[in-house]
């Protein structure tokens, strides 16, 4: 063998969900990973490199987990097509590595039989082998290997055990020039699935002795966590702790980042000559991108919890507990995690709807996700509440501002459920997708894998959100800056810009909901991100550095707005679709402009209606 590099070989990891496939992928490729999307579909494509002892580079593809090649979701279609070598833009894999949870072989054996029919060279990695040994599970590796006709490697991905062996086996197959057999896989019918189960059962009986010390921990924990009353109480407590953490732990980091962006903007403004370019950099790029990036700490804290609970095996239980509650509103149990994420920011929420198999279920979830009170609404809520809601105690213990805040959150949740309910009834009559999910055995999360997943989530948010946000920011900046103020102008510059003109134009339309022209104008830069409306209000009311002194802005608003107007503004923001980035992400995830347009229309209609009702009611009570 010469020193010249051998040609790169392609390896695809296939396996059931919860088999530790991603942990094995991480152990194999370390930090040499790339995450992107498969061409034309919104399925995450994870690829990494590993070098064999023989000097070959293996390009490893981590395919989405599946129970069968009979694909049902976009993720599973990718897995099937990649395995069959029919995926557009992908070269067929040279070797398949089937990853199996050694303690849970029954279902994966049936998948292995399907994979064998595909005819590609394959290695079976029996992962979590340490747990199998601890349980006293005996597997006759040689017999199993003979029966399946493929080499078997035992691995413990979290401890990087068996990795070299796995790589060596793959290299062995490639070096031996294994090309496999003709593909004879066809979509099985019910009878063939039954036959495959019988065959799997025979193999299992012949080579695997049941565990001497089966896992009883999962059963014990489940009797508490899946208890109809205690289980729900624990879930709610967990959610409460999560939200506390999201808003308290991340506050310091978020503040630091927004200060940092403010300082950067100030630095640029101070060192560049005042002009268009500087305005573009400070008001457009830095403050625009900054206004979204400041949510990164919150998103990371939220995802930290989600990944931890996911790896522990709890998320399937949460979906189980919430299924009926969400099902009443026509949502799938799996919509729970995306909607939960949307409390931090709708962008990661909408991106995580990919776990929902059914297209309609997924679309409904995407459409209602922005109704969850994302953290960008908080600055707006806080400003208006501090200006218009008296700081009183009601019923002895509850503070009125706190109560109003809670009410706004509740309004978001209730309206999301109502919208999905109505969508189900009116547009997508007919039944919901079957709910069938494995409740995996509980496992202690591996800290390194948790950190790696967290890093990945953060990176995805920054790159994907960034590429969508950036052009939107430029558009919004353009609207608020052109044309510039004429010489000798007395009003704030934004008043003369396109945004100002649009605001004035729209004002009569918004008069019935109590909005004055300043508010209408502020709504337009607010399109960049909801909380930008606060700064925009500061700009139109010509209060310098509104962020630095929110008190001053609140006082100004108090003098300029009636209570009815303030309340109408709050009601508007429960529904307002004022986030260009969300619209962009919806476009990207649904691959069409239809759904973002529908979202924009229905949310604007709801916002207008809510603000109208609130404004007119408040006026009737003499608060106008």
């Amino acid at each position, binding site marked *: 063998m010469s020193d010249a590099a051998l040609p790169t070989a392609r390896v695809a990891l296939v396996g059931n969900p919860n088999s530790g496939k991603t942990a094995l992928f991480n152990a194999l490729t370390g930090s040499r990973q790339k995450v992107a999307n498969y061409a034309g579909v919104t399925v995450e494509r994870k690829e990494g490199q590993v070098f064999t002892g023989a000097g070959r580079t293996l390009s490893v593809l981590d395919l989405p987990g599946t129970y*069968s090649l009979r694909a049902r979701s976009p993720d599973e279609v990718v897995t099937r097509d990649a395995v069959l070598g029919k995926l557009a833009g992908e070269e067929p894999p040279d070797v398949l590595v089937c990853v199996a949870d050694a303690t849970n072989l029954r279902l994966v054996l049936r998948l292995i039989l399907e994979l064998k029919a595909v005819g590609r060279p394959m290695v079976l990695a029996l992962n979590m082998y340490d747990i199998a040994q601890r349980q006293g599970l005996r597997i006759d590796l040689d017999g199993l290997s003979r029966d399946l006709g493929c080499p078997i490697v035992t691995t413990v991905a979290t401890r990087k055990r068996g990795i070299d062996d796995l790589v060596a086996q793959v290299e062995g197959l490639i070096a031996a020039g294994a090309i496999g057999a003709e593909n004879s896989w066809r979509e099985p019918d019910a009878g063939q699935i039954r036959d495959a189960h019988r065959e799997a059962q025979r193999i299992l009986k012949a080579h695997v002795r049941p565990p001497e010390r089966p896992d009883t921990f999962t059963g014990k924990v489940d009797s508490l966590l899946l208890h109809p009353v205690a289980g729900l109480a624990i879930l709610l407590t967990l959610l409460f702790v999560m939200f506390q953490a999201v808003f308290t732990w991340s506050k310091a980091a978020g503040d630091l980042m927004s200060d940092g962006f403010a300082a950067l903007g100030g630095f640029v403004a101070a060192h560049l000559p005042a002009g268009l370019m500087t305005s573009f950099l400070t008001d457009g790029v830095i403050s625009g991108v900054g206004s979204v990036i400041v949510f990164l700490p919150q998103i990371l804290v939220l995802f930290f919890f989600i990944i931890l609970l996911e790896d522990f095996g709890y998320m399937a239980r949460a979906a189980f507990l919430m299924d009926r509650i969400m099902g009443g509103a026509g949502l799938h149990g799996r919509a729970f995690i995306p909607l939960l994420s949307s409390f931090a920011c709708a962008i990661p929420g909408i991106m995580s709807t990919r776990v929902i198999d059914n297209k309609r279920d997924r679309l409904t979830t995407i459409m209602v996700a922005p109704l969850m009170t994302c953290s960008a609404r908080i600055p707006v809520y806080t400003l208006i509440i501090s200006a218009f809601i008296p700081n009183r105690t009601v019923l002895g213990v509850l503070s009125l501002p706190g109560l109003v805040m809670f009410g706004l959150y509740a309004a978001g949740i209730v309206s999301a459920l109502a919208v999905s309910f109505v969508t189900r009834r009116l547009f997508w009559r007919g039944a919901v997708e079957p709910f069938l999910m494995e409740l995996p055995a509980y496992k202690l999360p591996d800290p390194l894998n948790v950190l790696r997943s967290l890093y990945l989530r953060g990176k995805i948010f920054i790159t994907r959100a960034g590429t969508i946000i950036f052009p939107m920011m430029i558009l919004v900046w353009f609207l608020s800056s052109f044309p510039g103020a004429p010489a000798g102008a007395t009003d704030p510059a934004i008043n003369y810009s396109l945004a100002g003109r649009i605001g004035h134009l729209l004002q009569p339309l918004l008069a019935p909901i109590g909005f004055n022209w300043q508010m209408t104008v502020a709504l337009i830069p607010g399109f960049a991100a909801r909380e930008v409306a606060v700064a925009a209000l500061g700009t139109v009311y010509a209060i310098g550095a509104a962020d630095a002194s929110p008190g001053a802005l609140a006082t100004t608003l108090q003098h300029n707005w009636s209570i009815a107007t303030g309340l109408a503004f709050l009601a508007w923001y429960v529904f307002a679709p004022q986030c260009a980035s969300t619209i962009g992400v919806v476009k990207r995830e649904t691959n069409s402009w239809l759904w973002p347009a529908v979202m924009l229309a229905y949310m604007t209609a709801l916002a207008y209606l809510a603000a109208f009702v609130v404004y007119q009611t408040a006026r009737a009570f003499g608060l106008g």
Partner: protein
Amino acid sequence: MHDMIADSAKVLAAVDEAARTVRLSAARPGDRGVIVDVRAESHPGDHGVNVDELQRRLLEFGFVEGARIEVLHEGAIWRDPIAVRLDDMRIGLRRRDAEDVWILLDPQ
């Protein structure tokens, strides 16, 4: 005479077995037994997928004739969904999707 006794014993056994054969959708926590039939007939058009597809999904998850099953937990609202132990796996599913899974409960 002897035949009659044997026949009636058979009939009794059959009656007993019929009485112990229930839909998984009607089972309660603690019920355990063996899956005897997985059909494709109930509520066509009401599962979001056709009944044959639902049957195949059930089979793929291991709801297959001969598998040991035990109902472990049920949800708080309308006792739905249910969590079952199926051979050595745990699976959560809705009762409406479990109607065509028939189980022969173990004798008490």
